[in-house]
C-alpha cells in the first residue's frame, strides 16, 4: 500500500525557520517525483514545486521560487519543505504528493501538515 506520512502540526513565530517532512512508503522512492502543495485557510490548492528523488532535480512555481527550499534525503527516503524565515502569511496546510509522471497527475497525497505562524 502506498502511503505518504507527513510530520505533525507546527506553531512558529514570524522570522523563525522550519523544516517539515514527508516519508513515502510502499513503492520505490526514486521512481516518482514528489510535489508540495499549499492550501491557505479557506483557499484553493497551489503548487509550490516538485522534486525528483533520483537526482534532486527541482522545479519551483514562480510564486515560491526563493521563498522555500524543497529537498530529499535518499538515505532515509524522505522529502522536505523548509523555510528560513517564516511570515504570518505562511500559515496554511501543506500537502506532499506523489506525482505520477506517466499519467501527469497526483495519485497519492499525504495527510497534510498544518503550519501556524503567529506572534
Amino acid at each position, binding site marked *: 500500500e502506498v502511503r505518504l506520512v507527513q510530520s505533525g502540526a507546527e506553531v512558529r513565530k514570524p522570522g523563525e525557520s522550519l523544516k517539515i517532512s514527508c516519508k513515502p512508503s510502499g513503492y520505490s522512492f526514486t521512481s516518482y517525483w514528489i510535489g508540495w502543495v499549499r492550501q491557505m485557510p479557506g483557499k484553493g490548492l497551489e503548487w509550490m514545486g516538485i522534486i525528483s528523488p533520483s537526482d534532486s532535480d527541482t522545479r519551483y512555481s514562480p510564486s515560491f521560487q526563493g521563498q522555500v527550499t524543497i529537498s530529499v534525503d535518499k538515505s532515509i527516503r524522505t522529502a522536505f519543505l523548509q523555510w528560513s524565515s517564516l511570515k504570518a502569511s505562511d500559515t496554511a496546510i501543506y500537502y506532499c504528493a506523489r506525482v505520477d509522471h506517466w499519467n501527469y497527475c497526483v495519485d497519492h497525497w499525504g*495527510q497534510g501538515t498544518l503550519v501556524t505562524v503567529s506572534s
Partner: protein
Amino acid sequence: QSALTQPPSVSGSPGQSVTISCTGTSSDVGGYNRVSWYQQPPGTAPKLMIYEVSNRPSGVPDRFSGSKSGNTASLTISGLQAEDEADYYCNSYTSSSTYVFGTGTKVTVL
C-alpha cells in the same frame, strides 16, 4: 503561471448532472492532454478523480467523466449524489514542465 479559471460554485439536485469548466491557455490545458481533476471534501486531502482529461482511476464511479475542447477542460458529474458535495480542482501540466491548479469549484447538492 496563473491559476486555471473555474466557476466558484455549481449546484444541482440529487440525480441531476453538473459540469465544471476549467479554462487555461495554450501553454497548459490547450497544449497537452494532461488535465486531472481532484475531489476535496472538507477537512480532508484531495483525491484523484480523473487523469489525462478523461481517464478514471480504479474505484472512481463512472458518474464522473472528463472532456476537453481547446483551452477548456470539463468535469461532469452525472446522477449527482449527496456524497459528491465537495470542492473540485482541475490541474494541468504546463510548458514550463510544472503543474498548475484551477481556482476550485464548490459543488453543492441541493
